[in-house]
């Protein structure tokens, strides 16, 4: 067992996958010679050769499209989009080709690929380096969407994503690359070396897609979240003094509805939290499902805490970011309702 950052754990997942399957190839901007702007692929080109870990031009459409071709032919490409915000030129290929290939060929061709993208804010990236576009993927039938929240699970989820027979969008919360971030931006940052989820097992293991984790058990309310917000939620709950159960979804699609409903039926109150903008965000889907599945157990309206419906700001990052203070207020509110 080694303590790793999320960057090191993701790098390790690549190495393990490449070691056991010669069809796994890695491509993206700066991923080869330079090792990735966040260093997630550092050393892979040296170890596995330029044929298996290679640089692409700045051509997101081309990166995604060629990866789809590779996947259709039997390779297992892992494509890195340098920031999720750069994905849009490749979005057509993701939606019209990757997600649909299996369906329109009646299963004759498939697209077993992973598209990795750093997501979310908290690093002063402003509007073109901070977005959380997960709902743009979960809205598309044929894609799976994964958002890890710590190094150990990032490795296992990435290995499961690589093994998966369908295209998987793997969103890496960049604010969590080096440590768990609880939203208290004015406090010293904590490295993963100080957190037990930085313990990463060596070798191959999977964290299955479609399984959520209850990261804090509680009885008063259920807080459903994923990615960076898992740590924000835990901090807010600790500070609120309310016994809130916190669920880390880990995979947005397929969604672990069983874990959600078991919790909300127990607590009767529910908050959904994400960093992405509120309107038509992923929280709307979770809220609708909770309402359908747990209607007779609910003692309060389901609340959503999310980024405001604005572009991700440059100067006012912490006014935008749904930090522990906003989550605490939501906890108080959901507890107030009779």
């Amino acid at each position, binding site marked *: 067992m080694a303590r790793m950052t999320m960057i090191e754990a993701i790098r390790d997942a690549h190495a393990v996958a490449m070691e056991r399957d010669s069809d796994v190839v890695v491509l993206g*901007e*700066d991923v*080869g*010679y*330079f090792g990735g*702007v966040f260093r997630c692929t550092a050393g892979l080109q040296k170890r596995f050769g330029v044929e298996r870990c290679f*640089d*692409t*031009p*700045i*051509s*997101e*459409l*081309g990166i995604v499209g060629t990866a789809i071709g590779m996947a259709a032919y039997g390779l297992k490409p892992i494509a890195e989009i*340098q920031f999720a*915000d*750069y994905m*849009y*030129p490749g979005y057509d290929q993701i939606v019209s080709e990757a997600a649909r290939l299996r369906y329109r060929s009646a299963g004759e061709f498939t697209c077993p690929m992973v598209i990795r993208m750093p997501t979310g804010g908290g*690093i*002063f*990236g*402003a*509007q*073109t*380096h901070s977005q959380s576009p997960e709902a743009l993927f979960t809205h598309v039938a044929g894609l799976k969407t994964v958002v890890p929240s710590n190094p150990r699970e990032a490795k296992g989820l990435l290995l499961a994503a690589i093994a998966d027979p369908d295209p998987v969008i793997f969103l890496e919360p960049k604010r969590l690359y080096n440590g768990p971030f609880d939203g208290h931006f004015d406090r010293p940052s904590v490295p993963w070396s100080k957190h037990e989820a930085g313990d990463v097992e060596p070798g191959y293991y999977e964290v299955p897609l479609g399984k959520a984790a209850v990261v804090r058990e509680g009885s008063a309310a259920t807080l459903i979240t994923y990615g960076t917000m898992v740590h924000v939620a835990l901090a807010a709950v600790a500070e609120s003094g309310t016994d809130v159960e916190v669920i880390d979804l880990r995979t947005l699609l397929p969604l672990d509805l069983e874990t959600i409903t078991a919790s909300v039926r127990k607590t009767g109150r529910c908050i959904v939290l994400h960093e992405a903008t509120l309107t038509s965000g992923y929280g709307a889907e979770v809220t609708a499902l909770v309402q359908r599945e747990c209607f007779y157990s609910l003692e309060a309206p389901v609340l959503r805490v999310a980024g*405001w*419906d*604005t*572009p991700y*700001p*440059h*100067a*006012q990052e912490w*006014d*935008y970011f749904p930090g522990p203070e906003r989550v605490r207020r939501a906890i108080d509110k959901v507890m107030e309702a009779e």
Partner: protein
Amino acid sequence: MAARKTTKNPNVSAEEMLGYYRDMLLIRRFEEKAGQLYGMGLIGGFCHLYIGQEAVVVGLEAAAEEGDKRITSYRDHGHMLACGMDAGGVMAELTGREGGYSKGKGGSMHMFSKEKHFYGGHGIVAAQVPLGAGLAFADRYKDNGRVTFTYFGDGAANQGQVYESFNMAALWKLPVIFVIENNQYAMGTAQKRSTSTEEIHKRGEAFGIPGELVDGMNVLAVKEAGEKAVAHCRAGNGPYILEVKTYRYRGHSMSDPAKYRTREEVQKMREERDPIEQVRAMLLTGKHATEDQLKEIDKEIKEIVNASAEFAKESPEPDVSELWTDIYAEAPAA
């Protein structure tokens, strides 16, 4: 008016040369100051410095006329200063303050000035290229004789939308100069590792767009090429491509340690090709300026840059209510 002293280049007066020196030095000192403020934590996030590339914008601005437009990518501070935007307003945008060109909403990569016909800094690689073609379309539509300088990098030159823009610009004979600022690195990837052919300026050939390679470390060469391109566009001949070979001394952004190239490579460029030193040497050896005159300019620039930094520190942070403005003309009911 005093007789103009000429330099070796008959088209350029000593005053103009001094002007280029001053404009390039302003960009360099501004960027150095921005780097310092970044180091002090006053600027956060992404900040892409233009140091080393100064001759490109200064040379092309020398070929521009009032009303001509410019649009560029995220390495945009130099373009703004070169077209006459206020250093304080740019610096205050970097620090995310109310006095910034975008009231702190845009940051380093996103500033605009209608007055100076500057259509932005754009954070997404190559996204500004079709916009530049559109600006030129509007000029052609209005038949006003204006041209648009559409800047992008060698990295951006591999985005598909560049070629869609080339085709439309040629098809519709748009007065647009596609300026490829080839600093030889697409973020951390050297040109040879990302680009199939070395001669990017020839990529217009398939569309019937003439292109040429320009020494981007030499402001006079850039100006001359710019004038030729501008004349081509103004005469209604459609677009023109300039591949301006340049070099950035700093990393891609402030967080880039630039480990993908050697220190020697950077050092060699600085020592042998520096655009500001070249003009300085021309001015002094041609006796078009004295050391004292240049010192005076240095001093003046220092004052402008220091004042911009002071303004950027003093200007208040935007009010929280600004989060909700400028999203729609009229905010939709919640």
